[in-house]
């Protein structure tokens, strides 16, 4: 396999709130290789966005990182100095936000926002973008993102564009200068289905053309299955299963993955899936063992007391569940 780009090791992040400490991420391990498209799937509140924000260190003030490392090209992002982090943000990683309307400053023109973004960035040769090139680069980026009449778009304000156009603008900005990693945090949640499809195709095309790695965060299983090479299934701030996308969708091991996949309504009928009984983890009093154990139909006594280790059931396919660690005889 190619070179390792990002390696999240045993990341534990919590939030201090008035009721106490929310222990959200509980030892997350994620590896991203160069040029790879990786999906992080999970329900609302499973800590997907916290993972993304830890990578860029834009967690809110109440957040606290207890433990773990976020190694980007073998350097720990979490212990970097501020100038190093800002260099990382300007040069290496960019992020596509969930809501492009909120993420574009309503009082600035697209042109002024884009020239800020590009002006802060670096070229492939590693030098700062010259002010004289900014406009041309912005127009090129918009054109690559299939936006008609780029000059007109540069002069308009975010509210003058439609939702899909705004997200295209955002993608254009994220990929206007060379990046090694793009984090897309539910990029299509606020768009309607036809636009969603176009936006995903666009992201996929640009990512492939520029040999960039992608982290796609989504709660939508079909989006992830179409877009990614590998998938991390998260539940309650832990990675429960990781595998190649096809393996995971065709042959899920973890009871949570199985339950979630069976929830997708099928065109062939049969109504809705049975769903998963119970509620999302209460991070204030998270279960001591496996976080899925209170809802798990196959929970063993050991599940309630110990956190299951991640075991490899097939090459590249890892599951955090005692059901499988026993099978291996360990």
């Amino acid at each position, binding site marked *: 396999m190619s070179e390792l780009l990002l390696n999240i090791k045993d990341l534990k992040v919590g939030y201090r709130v008035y009721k106490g400490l929310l222990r959200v991420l509980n030892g997350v391990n994620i590896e991203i290789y160069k040029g790879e498209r990786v999906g992080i799937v999970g329900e609302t509140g499973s800590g997907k966005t916290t993972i993304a924000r830890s990578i*860029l260190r*834009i967690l809110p*003030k109440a957040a606290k990182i207890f433990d773990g490392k976020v190694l980007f090209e073998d350097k720990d992002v979490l212990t970097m100095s501020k100038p190093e*982090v*800002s*260099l*990382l*943000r*300007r040069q290496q*990683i*960019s*992020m596509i*936000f969930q*809501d492009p309307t*909120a*993420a*574009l*400053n*309503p*009082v*600035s*023109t697209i042109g002024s926002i884009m020239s*800020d*973004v590009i002006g*802060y*960035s670096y070229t492939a040769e590693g030098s700062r973008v010259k002010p004289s090139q900014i406009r041309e680069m912005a127009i090129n980026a918009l054109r690559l993102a299939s936006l008609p009449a780029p000059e007109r778009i540069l*002069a*308009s304000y975010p509210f003058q564009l439609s939702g899909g156009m705004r997200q295209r603008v955002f993608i254009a900005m994220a990929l206007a200068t060379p990046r090694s990693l793009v984090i897309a945090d539910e990029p299509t949640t606020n768009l309607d289905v036809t636009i969603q499809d176009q936006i995903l195709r666009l992201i996929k095309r640009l990512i492939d053309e520029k040999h960039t790695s992608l982290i796609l965060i989504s709660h939508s299983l079909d989006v992830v299955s179409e877009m990614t090479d590998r998938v991390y299934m998260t539940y309650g701030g832990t990675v429960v299963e990781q595998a190649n996308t096809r393996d995971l969708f065709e042959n899920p091991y973890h009871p949570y993955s199985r339950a979630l996949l069976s929830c997708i309504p099928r065109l062939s009928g049969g109504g809705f899936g049975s769903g998963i009984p119970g509620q999302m983890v209460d991070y204030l009093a998270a279960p001591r063992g496996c976080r899925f154990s209170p809802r798990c139909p196959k929970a063993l006594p050991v599940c309630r007391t110990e956190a299951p280790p991640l075991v490899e059931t097939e090459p590249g396919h890892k599951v955090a569940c005692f059901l499988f660690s026993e099978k291996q005889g360990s």
Partner: protein
Amino acid sequence: MEIFLDSIKNSIYKFSRNKVSIIGFFMVAMVIIVAIFAPLLAPYPKAAGAFIDFSNASKPPSRAHFFGTDVVGRDILSRVMFAFRGALIMGLGVIAAIVPFGVLVGLFAGYYYGTWIDTVVMRITDIFVTLPALLLALAVASFGRPSLFNSMMAVAFAWWPFYARLTYSMASSVRNETFVKAAQTIGAHKAHIIFKEILPNCLAPIFTKMALEIGWVILVGATLSFVGLGEQPPTAALGTMVSDGAQYLPAQWWISLFPALAICFMILAFNLLGDGVKSMLSTEVL
């Protein structure tokens, strides 16, 4: 460029949707023109200073003196015209001085919302709010001789905290917007975030407040000169003229009435203009 022109046209259109604000605009324009060209427009320019003509003292309004004359025979119309100058300097000068300062203070405190910087800066601001303008003016006046400048200082001291608070409340909510987060993810520095992302989103209410408050500042300035803390005689000041004439009420009513009406006129003018600015800056489609 075309879009820039469009937005100006759009602003003018929105401003003029409110017909009364056009009247306000012309009233303000008139006050400013009269103030600037007072020596040319005033029928008796000498009346502005130390001038005595007892043969004309306390004359009621007539064709020669539209607003009558005061106890020492000075033409009141001319004095009102000259007094516009002090009032305008008061209103515009104070606002021009306190808005940038108050906005800066509010922006920084808002950006550092929740930290000790926020607490220290905003509590100092609160201390200034608790001191009434008149009391401050008395204090400032007791330090030096009362003058227009000192009364402006006094009003400015008492007034800037309101801009700091307004900007603070705007900035502390705007800083949580996703576009500020997005700016951080591109590696923008603090100055960029404060001045390019947060500040522009706070401007509309600040401008509206400014436009509406010029008249209010003029009124406080007139109050200060009414109690003798503003522009000193013989220079014409609207408040002083009203208080001087008050002793001769009701028989020689014109001595205080016309300066008082002039104050009303100015405040009305700026308030109507302010309303226009408000509708110009609102995003609401009328």
